C-alpha cells in the first residue's frame, strides 16, 4: 500500500479528555496525542521499548508495529503502543489510567505554600526586586526647556530617584512620545537591573501603575513544571500552578530528551513543548489571581542545565558527551516573547546560572534558598529528582555532584511504580506474625501503584521483617503466600487485584528491589565520595537539607534503614520542599540574592562521578541493605534468618 498523494485526513477523538484533532493519514498516534494536548506517559521517548504509552483503540483502525510490550490478551482487546501506531482511519482512543498523566493530581503539593514560605533558611537579604517600577511626574516641555522626551525621562529619574547610567530599550523609544502625552506627563517606567551598575528602561506606561507589578517564578523540572505568580510590591505569592512538562512525551529523563533533540526538528519540538507548558501555567496563574498579563514584568526560571538549554533552544548534545560541558552557565537576559512565552514584549527571562552539565540552576537556586552559602555549618544538600543532585559545603567551599540515581524514586523502572498521586501506595507496615501487609494510599484511593516514598517504606519494612535479605532478595522459605514466583522472578503481593484500580495484583519484585538498591547506592556513594574528596566523612555533617517534592514525603527513619540517607541524629535533617522554586522566587524579590546566586554558582566545584574510581568502589559497597559496612549504619538493626 502506498500512501497516496491525495492525503486523507482523519479525526482522532481522545477519551477521557474528549478532545478531537484532525490529522493526516499515517500520523504517529503518540505525536497526535501530544499535538492535541493530551498527556501520554512515554518513558522511553517513543522508542517502543517501555510499553508505558499503551492506549485502547475503541473504534477505528491503526497500523501498528507490534512489540512484546503488548500481551496477546491486551492486543486482542485493542491495546496498542501509541508510539508504534499510525492513524489509518477515524479513531476513538482511550488513554488508560496507567498511561495517563493527570494534572489534577499534581496539585497535591499546592497545599504546601505556607510550609514553603517558612522553609526559606536564607537570611539577611533586602527586598529589592531586580525589576522595579518608577512613577514620574515630568515637567511638560516648553520652548525654553526643549530637551528630547527621552532626556526628559532620564532627567526625571535622576532627579526623583537619584539613578544614573540608564539605557533605554528600543521598544520604549518607539512608543514614548505617545505615552508621555497620554496622561499629562505622568508615567510609570519599568527598570530592569542588567548588571551591577547598569539598568535599562524596558517599559513605559501612562499614569501610575506601580500597584500592579508582578512576576513569575518557574521551576522547570524534567517531569513537572511549577510556577508561581509573585507580587513584586509586597513580596507575596499570589498564585501557584503546576503541570507535567509536556516534553515527557519525548522521554522520561534528560538523556532520552537529549537523544530526542538530535532528531530532525527535535530540538524545536522540545522547546515548543516546554514553552506550551509554561504558557498554560501563565494563563492559569493570571486567571486565578485575576490580573492582566501586561502587568507582569519579569520571569525567573530555575531548571537543570538540560532543561535550560532546551528552553532556550540551545543544542544540548554535548551535555551528555565526555567531558560533559554545557554551552552556557549564565545565560544572558533574554526577552521571554522571543522564545514564544506569552508575556508582554518587555518581559525579560532570567535563568538561574548552572554549574555543570548535570548540576543546574535548580540546585544553585535551592542552595541559595537554603542559605547554605551563608553559614559555617557543614551541610549536605540533597535533591532527589529524576537525577539525584548533592552539594556539600558551607560559606567557604561547595562541592557538587550529580548521581545517576535514575527515575526509581519517581516510580520509573519499578513494575508498578508511579508518581505520588491518589492511589499510590505510600504507607506500608508488615504484621510480623503473619507477614500480611498494612497499606495506605494517597487520598485513601483504591491502590493503583507504588510511589517513590512508598517504595522506600516498603523496602524498609520488608527488610526489618526479614522478608527480604540484605541483598534485596526474597526469603522464599517464609510461611506466607504473599511471596510467589511471578513473571519477573520472586515478588511480594502488596494488594490483590480486586482491591486495585488496575485490576491486577500490585506486587513488588526482586527486579524492583535491585533498581531501588542501585538508586540508593548511587546517592549514598555520591555523599561518601564528596566527603572523602574534602577529607571529611558523612558523620561530620551538621545538617542535612532535603529538597524536592519527593524529599518532603520521605520517612527519614525508613530512608536510613535502606541506606539512602546517612545514619545521623534525626534532628539534623531539614526539609525545604521545592528548593528550586524557592530560590527562583527569592531571586525575583532581591537583587542581593540574585548576585548571591551568581556567586554560589561560581564557588561550586563539580565533581564528575561517572569517571571517578572512588565512586565506583563506594557504589559497590552501598549495593546492600543498608550497606556492606554495617558500622556506617549503627542504628539499623536487621532481622537475621
Amino acid at each position, binding site marked *: 500500500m502506498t500512501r497516496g498523494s491525495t492525503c486523507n485526513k482523519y479525526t482522532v477523538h481522545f477519551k477521557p479528555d474528549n478532545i478531537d484533532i484532525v490529522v493526516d493519514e499515517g500520523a504517529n498516534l503518540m505525536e497526535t496525542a501530544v499535538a492535541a494536548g493530551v498527556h501520554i506517559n512515554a518513558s522511553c521517548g517513543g522508542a517502543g521499548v517501555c510499553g508505558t504509552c499503551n492506549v485502547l483503540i475503541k473504534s477505528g483502525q491503526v497500523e501498528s508495529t507490534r512489540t512484546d510490550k503488548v500481551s496477546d490478551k491486551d492486543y486482542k482487546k485493542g491495546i496498542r503502543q501509541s508510539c508504534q501506531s499510525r492513524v489509518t482511519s477515524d479513531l476513538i482512543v482511550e488513554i488508560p489510567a496507567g498511561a495517563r498523566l493527570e494534572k489534577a493530581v499534581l496539585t497535591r503539593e499546592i497545599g504546601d505554600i505556607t510550609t514553603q514560605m517558612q522553609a526559606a533558611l536564607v537570611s539577611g537579604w533586602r527586598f529589592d526586586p531586580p525589576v522595579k517600577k518608577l512613577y514620574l511626574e515630568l515637567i511638560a516641555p516648553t520652548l525654553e526647556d526643549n530637551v528630547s522626551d527621552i532626556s526628559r525621562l532620564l532627567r526625571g529619574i535622576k532627579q526623583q530617584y537619584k539613578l544614573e547610567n540608564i539605557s533605554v530599550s528600543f521598544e520604549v523609544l518607539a512608543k514614548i512620545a505617545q505615552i508621555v502625552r497620554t496622561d499629562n506627563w505622568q508615567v510609570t517606567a519599568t527598570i530592569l537591573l542588567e548588571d551591577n551598575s547598569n539598568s535599562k528602561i524596558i517599559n513605559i506606561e501612562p499614569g501610575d501603575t506601580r500597584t500592579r507589578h508582578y512576576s513569575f517564578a518557574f521551576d522547570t523540572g524534567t517531569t513537572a513544571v511549577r510556577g508561581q505568580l509573585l507580587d513584586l510590591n509586597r513580596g507575596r505569592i499570589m498564585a501557584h500552578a503546576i503541570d507535567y512538562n509536556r516534553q515527557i512525551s519525548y522521554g522520561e529523563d534528560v538523556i532520552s530528551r537529549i537523544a530526542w533533540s538530535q532528531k530532525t526538528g527535535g530540538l524545536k519540538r522540545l522547546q515548543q513543548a516546554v514553552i506550551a507548558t509554561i504558557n498554560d501555567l501563565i494563563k492559569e496563574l493570571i486567571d486565578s489571581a485575576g490580573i492582566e498579563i501586561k502587568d507582569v514584568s519579569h520571569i525567573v526560571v530555575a531548571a537543570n542545565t538540560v532543561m535550560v538549554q532546551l528552553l532556550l533552544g540551545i543544542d544540548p548534545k554535548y551535555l551528555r558527551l565526555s567531558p560533559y560541558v554545557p554551552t552556557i552557565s549564565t545565560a544572558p537576559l533574554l526577552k521571554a516573547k522571543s522564545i514564544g512565552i506569552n508575556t508582554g514584549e518587555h518581559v525579560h527571562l532570567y535563568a538561574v546560572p548552572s554549574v555543570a552539565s548535570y548540576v543546574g540552576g535548580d540546585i544553585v537556586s535551592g542552595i541559595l534558598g537554603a542559605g547554605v552559602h551563608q553559614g559555617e555549618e557543614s551541610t549536605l544538600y540533597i535533591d532527589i529528582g529524576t537525577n539525584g543532585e548533592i552539594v556539600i559545603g558551607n560559606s567557604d567551599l561547595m562541592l557538587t555532584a550529580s548521581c545517576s540515581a535514575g527515575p526509581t524514586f519517581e516510580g520509573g523502572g519499578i513494575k508498578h511504580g508511579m508518581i505520588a498521586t491518589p492511589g499510590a501506595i505510600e504507607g506500608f507496615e508488615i504484621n510480623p506474625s503473619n507477614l500480611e501487609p498494612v497499606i495506605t494510599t494517597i487520598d485513601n484511593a483504591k491502590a493503583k501503584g507504588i510511589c517513590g516514598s512508598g517504595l522506600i517504606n516498603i523496602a524498609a519494612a520488608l527488610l526489618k521483617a526479614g522478608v527480604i535479605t540484605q*541483598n534485596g532478595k526474597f526469603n522464599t522459605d517464609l510461611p506466607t503466600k504473599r511471596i510467589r514466583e511471578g513473571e519477573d522472578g520472586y515478588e511480594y503481593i502488596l494488594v490483590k487485584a480486586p482491591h486495585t484500580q488496575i485490576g491486577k495484583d500490585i506486587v513488588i519484585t526482586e527486579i524492583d528491589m535491585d533498581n531501588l538498591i542501585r538508586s540508593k547506592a548511587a546517592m549514598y556513594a555520591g555523599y561518601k565520595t564528596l566527603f572523602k574528596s574534602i577529607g571529611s566523612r558523612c558523620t561530620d555533617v551538621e545538617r542535612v537539607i532535603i529538597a524536592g517534592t519527593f524529599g518532603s514525603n520521605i520517612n527519614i527513619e525508613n530512608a536510613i534503614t535502606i541506606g539512602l540517607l546517612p545514619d545521623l541524629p534525626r534532628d539534623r535533617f531539614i526539609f525545604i520542599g521545592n528548593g528550586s522554586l524557592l530560590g527562583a522566587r527569592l531571586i525575583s524579590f532581591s537583587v542581593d540574592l540574585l548576585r548571591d546566586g551568581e556567586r554560589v554558582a561560581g564557588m561550586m566545584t563539580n565533581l564528575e562521578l561517572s569517571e571517578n574510581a572512588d565512586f565506583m568502589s563506594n557504589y559497590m*559497597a552501598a549495593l546492600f541493605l543498608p550497606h*556492606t559496612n*554495617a558500622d556506617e549504619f549503627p542504628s539499623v538493626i536487621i532481622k537475621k534468618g
Partner: protein
Amino acid sequence: MAFEVPKISYSGKIKEVILGKGDKAVTVGGETSYPLHLFEGGMPKLPRIAMEVYDMPPDDWPEAALAPFKGVTDNPVAWAKKCIDEYKAEMICLQLLSTDPNGLDRGADEAAEVVREVADAIDVPLIVWGTDNHEKDTEVLRKVCETCQDKRLVIGPVEEGDYKKIAAAALGYNHTVIASSPIDINLAKQLNILLGNLGVPDNQIIIDPTVSSIGYGIEYCYSVMERIRMAALTQQDEKLQLPIICNIARETWKTKEVKIPAAEEPKLGDTKKRGILMEAMSALILLLAGGDVVIMRHPEAIDLIRDMITELSAS
C-alpha cells in the same frame, strides 16, 4: 645506628578454620600480619596445598599435566590415593566436572556417591568443587552434603545466587562452605554477611575471591585479595577476617600459553616446564596476596611451592 625495618601494626586477626577432621585435619588462618610478613606479626599456620582430583577423565589437559596421573584418571579414588601416597598431598580437592550441565551432566545421586567413595577412602580433608552453575550446584552439593554427613567436607562454590540452599545443607550436615564471589571485596563481604545471617558460623567459612592465571588478570585478583587482607587486618573488618582459598590449577592449565606445543611455538620453550612454571608462579602470586589454601595440579609445581613456602617462612 642500626637499621630498623619499618613495621605495620595490625589490629585484626584472621580467624582459624579447621578443614576436615581427625588426625589429618588441617587448620588454616590465624594470621596477624600480611602474608609471610613474619617480621611484623604471626602466621601460625602456613599456607597449604590441596591436590586436584577429577570425577571424570579430563579430555583437554596437556600431556605434561596428565603424565603424573597415568592410569588413575578414570578412577577418582585411585587418583586421590596416588596424590596422597605418592605426592604427599595434605588435602584433596575433588572437582565435580562430570556434573556440568553443558558436559556429561551427571546426576546428583551418582556424583554424591563418587564423593562418598573418595571421602571414605582417604583420611585427609576433602574439598568438593561444583561447576559454578547455580541450579546444578544446588542439586548436587546438597546431595553431597547429605550423603557425606559429618565427613566435614569443604563444599563450594557457594555463591550469592545459590547460597541459601547449599549453605543450609552444609550447616545441617556439618560441613564447611566456600563463599565464592566474583573478584570484588564488597561482594565477598556481602556474601559472608548473608551466610552469617543464615546462621553459618565464621569458623565454617572460607573465602574464594575467584582467581585467574598469570596473563589473565591475576593482578586484579591480587589487588582484591590484598584489599580483603588490609580490611581484615588493619580496619578490623570482621566479616573479612577469614582464610582464603584459591582454585588456581584449572585456570593455569587451560591457558593457550600452557597448551600450545613447543613444536608449534618454539619461542615459548619446553611445554612441560612452561606449564609447571605457569602453575607455580600463579600459585605463588596468590599466596603472596593472602591465599591460605591453593588448589594445585602438577606434583613438580607443588614441590616448587612447598620449597618456596619453607624458605619464605624460615626464621
